[in-house]
């Protein structure tokens, strides 16, 4: 616990020093606010436009969380199909890689064209970007069960369903979480990318991506910084939420979650 406190204090110290340097640099060079606003100006922008910042944050979280949740459900189902046979994997796995390598900025406009702008299309962009890591990791978890454990189940005449629910699925949970952890971080990027193309996903207010476009067009650089800050905070929040869930479900038995509490 003490070690954690020291680590935290060190990190905060570095952060404070950086802020001071930034503020000092700004003052010394007399940079105009639309090029590089001072930390203080950014803080002021956060306070002054707090309600709209929170509204944008809420929209983007909704899209990212929706895309992430859908990718977990669909990814798990696809992984279950992939786990059935090597043939299926050989046939379909290349498409998973395709999903991962195709640039999302190129696909986003297509989706918007097909689905139309709005919450759904942005969620879909987040979903697509999240899907590959979930499929890849969960499949790995489902098929990497030790052969002797399968033999053990067979010796008790276990059915296919029992093998799945009592062996393969629980065995795959740690790998599923590895996938979710990766996906959680990029889900926010996916949602913001989607918004950059979608414009306002709701009448009136838009998400962080839309607001970033708007603020940069208006040269409201201080608010732009505030939005970038909010996006970062959102990514962190997702990541830590997943870390917590992972710890909650796995700390009793799995090494990956145990190190978080024991070290």
């Amino acid at each position: 616990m003490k070690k954690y406190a020291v680590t935290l204090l060190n990190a905060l110290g570095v952060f404070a020093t950086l802020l001071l340097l930034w503020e000092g640099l700004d003052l010394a060079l007399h940079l105009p606010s639309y090029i590089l606003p001072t930390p203080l100006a950014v803080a002021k922008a956060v306070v002054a436009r707090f309600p709209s910042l929170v509204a944008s944050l809420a929209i983007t979280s909704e899209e990212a969380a929706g895309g992430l949740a859908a990718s977990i459900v669909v990814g798990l189902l696809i992984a279950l199909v992939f786990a059935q046979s090597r043939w299926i994997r050989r046939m379909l796995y290349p498409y998973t890689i395709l999903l991962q390598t195709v640039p999302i900025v190129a696909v986003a406009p297509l989706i918007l064209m097909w689905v139309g702008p709005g919450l759904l299309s942005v969620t879909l962009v987040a979903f697509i970007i999240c899907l590959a890591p979930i499929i890849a990791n969960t499949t790995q978890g489902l098929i990497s069960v030790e052969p002797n454990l399968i033999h053990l189940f067979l010796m008790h005449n276990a059915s296919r369903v029992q093998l799945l629910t009592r062996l393969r699925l629980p065995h795959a949970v740690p790998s599923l979480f590895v996938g979710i952890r990766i996906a959680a971080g990029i889900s926010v990027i996916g949602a913001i990318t989607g918004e950059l193309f979608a414009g306002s996903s709701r009448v009136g207010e838009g998400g962080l991506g839309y607001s970033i476009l708007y603020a940069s067009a208006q040269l409201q650089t201080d608010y732009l910084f505030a939005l970038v800050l909010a996006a970062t905070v959102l990514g962190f929040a997702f990541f830590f939420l997943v870390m917590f869930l992972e710890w909650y479900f796995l700390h009793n038995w799995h090494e990956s979650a145990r190190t978080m509490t024991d070290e």
Partner: protein
Amino acid sequence: MMAESTAPQVALSGVSKRYGNTTVLQQIDLSIAQGEFVSLIGPSGCGKSTLLKLISGLTNPSAGSILVDGVAPIDARKSISYIFQDATLLPWRTVSRNVGLGLELEHVNREARKQKVQSLIELVGLTHVAGSYPRQLSGGMKMRVSVARALATTPRLLLMDEPFGALDEMTRDRLNEELLRLRAEQNWTAVFVTHSVAEAVFLSTRIVVLAPTPGRIAQQIAIDLPFPRTRVTRESPQFESYVTEVSRALRGVHSA
């Protein structure tokens, strides 16, 4: 249902096993009577583990026939338990729930399961860790859980593939004594694979020495040491002479 008591519980005749062009086992004839404790010993690559897999029906012979309780191994599985080289516990289950796994898979109801699990955990001396997860246990304790799980389904035949091979000698000796105590109470038949001559002599009523490439039976040695066997047994001159005899047989197999 049950085979006649005079018929062997396990009967292999003319059994061969090939993987591709390699013959792992050739022309194995072996019968094991109810209540015997048979150890399979031999150099690596003599097909000891394959023999266990054949008796359990986890793999099929390339030639010959195998009967367990008068039927094909796969149909006799309800009365067979298998203990693997490593404890093969499910890390997400507590000790109790690991011990109850076999009963659960065989659809035994919750009440009956609970009682059985409790008495077995007591029997292997793990009551104080019943709620712990496998990662919190020592190697010896994990093996005990594995033994308890195997016995929970009241097997009539216990197949063990070097179950104590990874343990230190003291723990292994203690678990050997416990295994014999459990056998005296429950009277199952055992087929036990090991690399240790002393362990084989201590546990068995008969030792089957296997020769490698291709795996075949080289010699069978009956061990007529009285039960119950204890630490005193290990210090007796008969024990020593059996160890010498088996070691000699093994050396013959190696140099052949």
